[in-house]
């Protein structure tokens, strides 16, 4: 059955294949497409924001629409672009890096993707159904509880659904990395990207439930008349801030750590050196993950928690600069004396170091609680978090895509176009955001839709908008690069970069069972060890045998669809109780699918070793 894969298939069967797939590599590709789409949507919103601010008292958009734009830009970029793109890389690479044939929970992996996608679609439905959420991506109460219309309702349910998907994905990767490593792949031999994926998954597990609860409380307040954040009923809106940031601060580490992992692998591969200070890098990753939970109140310095709380959180925040500094120096030392090859993946990684260091430095400035009273809610903060999230996460995603594109699709992205994208995006990025530090210091508050002329803000904003256009050009060229590579790019071997880790020991793109024989890992950078001892590939840890594979299933798609339908019921039952029928239909679909999944045995199937030989042409 498996030897028919190579045959051409019709569109419908390909679509069905992707709707039902539980293959982590295909799920990775779907995350990439969906995350890329939402990245473009969020980018479009950013362009509208920058165009509104290009000159004083501009009237490109109305004040209300501006609020919707800035809310949806932040929410989309964090939850629907950065997170899924990180998950795309994790799905495509982590099982390969640990020598696994699959993830621990292929069904749940698929469910996680579809929940994310339907959550994202639900959130964006709000644009066409009376207006998007407009209370900022942080949705502070009571602004969010009193925001008229259904915008914030879409925010609550969209994030609830996609958040559940992310949580499921996190658990899947935790178990995969603990249980499914190949023989010899000890924890301290795992590539840094796998390590960061592991720590990120742990952060997801412990951070997202706080958001779940926060969103539930907000939902109850808005839809069912509870009083959590309503001072008139004795409620307390600061609870939302705590719950949001107990989730929200670990979230930024959830995003940045995998990017750190990408850079570690890229630096090591293209410097032809083993990563400098591997043990310290692992330690720093774990420490950042741990400290990430101790610092949430630095987002709330101006709330009035008191000098004691502010001091503790300020010191804890500054402490994170230490492990991050360890990482920066280890990357530099990895480069030092290396046989460096500069290509697109490497350019993004090199561009990351100064950009992220600036973002880290302003982070320490913001951590000083006393000074934060000046910085709070100004463009200084906007500049800071764009330096770490664009300069860190987005650079990391671009670097990772260039690095692993051949592994995912069997073709190398065009280098010339890749470098063009890097330079336009890199220059545009600094042009856009560097000057915003000074706009903020001069007192320009964030989230305002206009500013007055002759207050020293005109030139800075015009420059910032010009930079945004350069970033847009870079992104469009990247898209063109993707298309031109898929059409005209030449097939490459399984190991185009002379790689060091296990994913480069198998063909590109990998067969659906990943490894014909599970490899035997004999140290850090296992493929490099074998190569340096004169072997061509990994030594197998087992004789050729039947391979167990999971069955495809449409249930994850249908379950997510059920929640999607139920959400509309929840949102509109506030105006008309007959909408509650949708809640019952949607939840019925969900519970019915869970029931089917529970009672129907799913043992998977085996690929027989004779078929493996046939496929390989032996």
């Amino acid at each position, binding site marked *: 059955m498996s030897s028919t894969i190579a045959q051409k298939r019709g569109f419908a069967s390909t679509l069905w294949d992707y709707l039902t797939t539980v293959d982590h590599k295909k799920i990775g590709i779907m995350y990439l497409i969906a995350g890329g789409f939402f990245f473009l949507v969020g980018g479009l919103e950013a362009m509208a924001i920058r165009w509104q601010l290009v000159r004083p008292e501009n009237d490109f958009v109305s004040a209300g629409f501006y609020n919707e734009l800035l809310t949806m830009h932040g929410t989309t970029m964090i939850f629907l672009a950065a997170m899924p793109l990180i998950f795309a890389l994790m799905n495509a690479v982590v099982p390969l890096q640990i020598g696994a044939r699959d993830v621990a929970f292929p069904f749940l992996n698929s469910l996680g993707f579809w929940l994310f996608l339907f959550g994202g679609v639900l959130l964006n439905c709000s644009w066409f159904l009376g207006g998007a959420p407009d209370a900022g991506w942080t949705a502070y109460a009571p602004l969010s509880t009193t925001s008229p219309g259904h915008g914030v309702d879409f925010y609550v349910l969209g994030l609830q659904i996609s958040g559940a998907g992310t949580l499921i994905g996190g658990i899947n990767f935790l178990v995969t990395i603990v249980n499914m490593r190949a023989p010899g792949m000890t924890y301290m031999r795992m590539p840094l990207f796998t390590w960061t994926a592991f720590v990120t998954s742990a952060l997801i597990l412990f951070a997202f439930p*706080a958001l779940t609860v926060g969103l539930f409380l907000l939902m109850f307040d808005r839809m069912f008349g509870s009083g959590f954040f309503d001072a008139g009923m004795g409620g307390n809106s600061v609870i939302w801030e705590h719950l949001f940031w107990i989730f929200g601060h670990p979230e930024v580490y959830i995003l940045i750590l995998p990017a750190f992992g990408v850079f570690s692998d890229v630096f090591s591969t293209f410097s032809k050196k083993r990563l400098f200070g591997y043990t310290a890098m692992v330690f720093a990753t774990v420490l950042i993950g741990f400290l990430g939970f101790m610092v949430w109140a630095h987002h709330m310095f101006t709330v009035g928690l008191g000098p004691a709380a502010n001091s503790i959180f300020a010191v804890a925040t500054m402490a994170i600069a230490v492990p991050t500094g360890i990482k920066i120096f280890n990357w530099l030392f990895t480069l030092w004396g290396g046989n460096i090859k500069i290509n697109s993946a490497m350019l993004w990684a090199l561009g990351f170091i100064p950009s992220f260091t600036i973002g880290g430095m302003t982070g320490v400035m913001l951590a000083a609680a006393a000074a934060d009273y000046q910085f709070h809610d100004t463009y200084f903060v906007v500049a800071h978090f764009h330096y770490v999230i664009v300069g860190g996460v987005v650079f990391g995603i671009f670097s990772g895509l260039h690095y692993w594109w051949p592994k995912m699709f069997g073709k190398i992205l065009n280098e010339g176009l890749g470098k063009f994208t890097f330079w336009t995006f890199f220059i545009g990025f600094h042009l856009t955001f560097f000057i915003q530090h000074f706009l903020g210091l001069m007192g320009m508050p964030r989230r305002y839709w206009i500013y007055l002329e002759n207050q020293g803000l005109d030139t800075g904003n015009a420059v910032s908008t010009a930079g945004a256009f350069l970033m847009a050009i870079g992104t469009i060229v990247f898209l063109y690069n993707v298309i031109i590579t898929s059409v005209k790019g030449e097939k490459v071997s399984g190991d185009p970069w002379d790689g060091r880790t296990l994913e480069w020991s198998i063909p590109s793109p990998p067969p659906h069972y990943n490894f014909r024989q599970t490899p035997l890992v004999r140290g850090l950078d296992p493929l490099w060890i074998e190569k340096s001892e004169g072997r061509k590939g990994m030594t197998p840890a087992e004789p050729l045998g039947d391979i167990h594979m999971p069955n495809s299933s449409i249930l994850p798609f249908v379950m997510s669809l059920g929640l999607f339908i139920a959400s509309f019921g929840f949102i509109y039952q506030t105006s008309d109780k007959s909408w509650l029928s949708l809640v019952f239909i949607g939840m019925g679909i969900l519970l019915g699918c869970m029931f089917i999944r529970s009672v129907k045995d799913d043992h998977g199937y085996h690929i027989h070793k004779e078929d493996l030989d046939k496929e390989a042409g032996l």
Partner: protein
Amino acid sequence: MSDEHTLNPEIMPEEPEKATLEGRNKFLGFWFFLGGETVLFASLFGTYLALKGSNNGGPTADELFGLELVFIMTMLLLTSSLTSVYAIYHMKNNDFKKMQLWLGITVILGLAFLGCELYEFTEYILHEDFTFRSSAFGSAFYTLVGFHGGHVLFGLLWIVTLMARNAKRGLNLYNAPKFYVASLYWHFIDVVWVFIFTVVYLMGVI
């Protein structure tokens, strides 16, 4: 089917829930899930503690809560946790009938607990004028205790489904992990209740 043979060995291994890779994955994954659930309930407890004094002119905690019913509920749920331990003990001895019996007792105790909880809620709503919408305290109380009650209900549906699905075919290495994680879930619900009993009821009355 080569699975038939491997999933139905002559003698059950010592830890049937961890005898297959799927079982080990389920076992570990479920522990991680319970870690996330812990954060979920911790957030709800934190919210409750912040709002328990905000009665908005309505009844306060020490006016509302009596310990008699709550004591019975605690005993019901603690006992049900014990009976689920017996069920898993018999699972490890490959005694399917006794396992089903003890799971059945667990379900009955769980149902009794839910009945008491419903009775408690209706009393508050009908006679004490203490509702989800009457104050921030009310919202926090019903959300915390209601989330727990929802977990109990889901756990009951889960265990009953497992019992019914496997009633005819008995134990094997495919369904043993399913029974095992369901019992883990049940223990977790029990632990959360111990905290609710302490934080909500005991601290509310004293």
